[in-house]
């Protein structure tokens, strides 16, 4: 188990370095950050001074090495655009994104599993048909369209929910939360649905097909033959087996929530890191963009590691083979 963990952490470091390298080299082609910073009437000498100050006159490898060396110490450089440390900017914005992604994940998981199980158990009910049809819409409509549609219905027409921003937030330590105020919670609803809907329908369809598969197995038939209650058969025996393959997909999908938040944050003017990233792209803020991509990569790595550990908790067959490979 410990060897497994160490191996995975080692792999994670390589993944992070690769992502850093690719993003860092890609952003060199996005544009010249200096021209956006100094303005039209700067002299060539001004530009060279600026380039030297930022270290942009150095070869690429040297620039990358400096970036990594500082990143390891938790320093991600100064944002070209705002002129403040990238770390501070991300720290300010991260709670907004994390709270949104967290709510969207809970929304996607709870409703995805619930509807997946329901539509698998009641295959012929009218509600199943309705849910399956609506889920097709959820899969095929682009996120921004769903967001705009929700804003139109609930903000413009019904005037129930705010159409942009986080509402009032409360600051606890370095963390600003929208969970503690009414307007904060209200502001979360529409972005959460927008961000989570696609994942929810995906999880629902996955759970449904896996559940149908499991319900056909011999051990479910045998569980029925033993006279176990429907509840024990469906939720004790079938659901647990359903969740094993579902965990993998869900892990990847939940990591994607943080990455996909960019679009939702843009639609709802949500002050999170995705919104920050979009602004940075416009002004070729290389340290900002590279740090953001590293952050997203970090999320994926953490989520995948958690998924692997979740397997051990759920499937006893893996525990045995892990012991076997160790010994």
């Amino acid at each position, binding site marked *: 188990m410990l060897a497994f963990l160490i191996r995975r952490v080692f792999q994670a470091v390589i993944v992070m370095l690769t992502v850093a390298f690719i993003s860092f080299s890609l952003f060199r082609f996005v544009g010249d950050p200096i021209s956006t910073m100094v303005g039209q009437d700067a002299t060539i000498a001004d530009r060279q001074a600026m380039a030297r100050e930022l270290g942009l006159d150095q070869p690429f490898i040297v620039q990358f090495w400096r970036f990594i060396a500082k990143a390891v110490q938790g320093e991600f450089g100064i944002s070209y655009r705002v002129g403040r440390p990238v770390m501070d900017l991300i720290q300010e914005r991260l709670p907004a994104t994390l709270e949104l992604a967290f709510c969207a994940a809970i929304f996607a998981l709870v409703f995805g599993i619930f509807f997946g199980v329901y539509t698998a158990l009641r295959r012929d009910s009218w509600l199943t048909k309705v849910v399956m049809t609506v889920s097709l819409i959820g899969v095929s409509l682009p996120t921004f369209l769903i967001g705009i549609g929700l804003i139109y219905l609930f903000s413009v027409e019904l005037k129930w929910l705010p159409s942009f921003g986080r509402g009032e937030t409360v600051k606890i330590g370095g963390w600003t939360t929208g969970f503690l105020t009414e307007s904060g919670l209200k502001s979360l609803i529409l972005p959460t649905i927008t961000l989570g809907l696609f994942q929810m329908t995906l999880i629902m369809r996955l759970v449904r097909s896996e559940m149908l598969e499991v319900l056909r*197995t*011999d*051990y479910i*038939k*045998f*569980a*029925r*033959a*033993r*006279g*176990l*209650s*429907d509840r*024990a058969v469906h939720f*004790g*025996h079938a659901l*647990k*087996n359903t969740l094993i393959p579902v965990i993998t997909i869900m892990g990847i999908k939940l990591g994607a929530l943080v990455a996909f938040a960019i679009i939702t944050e843009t639609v709802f003017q949500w002050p999170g890191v995705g919104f920050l990233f979009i602004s940075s792209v416009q002004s070729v803020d290389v340290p900002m963009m590279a740090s953001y991509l590293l952050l997203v990569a970090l999320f994926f790595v953490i989520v995948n590691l958690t998924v692997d550990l979740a397997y051990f908790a*759920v*499937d*006893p*067959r893996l525990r*045995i083979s892990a012991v076997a490979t160790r010994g």
Partner: protein
Amino acid sequence: MGDALLEVKDLVVEFKTRRGALRAVDGVSFALKPGEVLGLVGESGAGKSLTGAAVIGLLEPPGHIAAGSVTLGGERIDTLPREAMRKVRGKRIGMVFQDPLTSLNPLYTVGEQLTETIRTHLPVNQAEARQRAIDLLNDVGIPAASRRLDSYPHEFSGGMRQRVVIALALAAEPEVVIADEPTTALDVSVQAQIISVLKNLCTEKGTAVILVTHDMGVIAETADRVAVMYAGRIVEIGPVRDVIKQPVHPYTMGLMGSIPDPQGGAERLVQIPGAMPRLNAIPVGCAFNPRCQMAIDRCRVERPTMRRIGATDVACHVAGPAETTP
């Protein structure tokens, strides 16, 4: 048959399809006395497994009981509501499936599955259920039962898993156990052990058994009576010795002729020409008539009813007393 524990009468199992209903089990009747072992034999698709599934109320839709009745201890069980029937399953009728590798839930320990079953049917606490689970594993011959209780199914061999399955089927001491091809998926060397475990335990506890199989050897060793099925119908039913030694129905005779006899020497095995009809093309009259060498005109028109010949009941117009068999 006033002393019958389980009585199946004119059972019909149908599958609804777009082109009408397919009759997979057609008018099957038999009775089971307490502690008796009844063998159900026949080729694949003869309806023997479906008969078992119908008795325990586990037919998979679109299969359903279209006619007939199943009576357990004087009470009709085929018409029971879902929840009441669930309480019959496991408690009064147990079931053993064919493939022990897939019959157990891989995510729960053997002990968890046993205690869950026990506590579903019997009013005992966790500790008592656990003790009972250990006793059951001991009964089915699993060594170091108390230690093995916390093992997962994948840690057992196929034969051991089938023992666990039998322990699960017998967990609440049912009156009837339906064993659906319990040895087909096992190594030949293990088959005999599993059959003897099943037989001994049921004799000991007075449990009646419906043994579904296509293995006449298993039937000869284990069953008290045997019912031979063909195309969803019982063609011959009687004491196992009579049916095997002196089969009366032409199909049974063919079936017995096709079993290799170690003492029989180099004689060619008898084959029954043709194949069993598909469910949508069952012949009028006796279902066996196109393949039957003794068939007369009447067989192609009129469906034979059960007649008592010697010790067995036979559905055949032609079959005479035992002398007619060679």
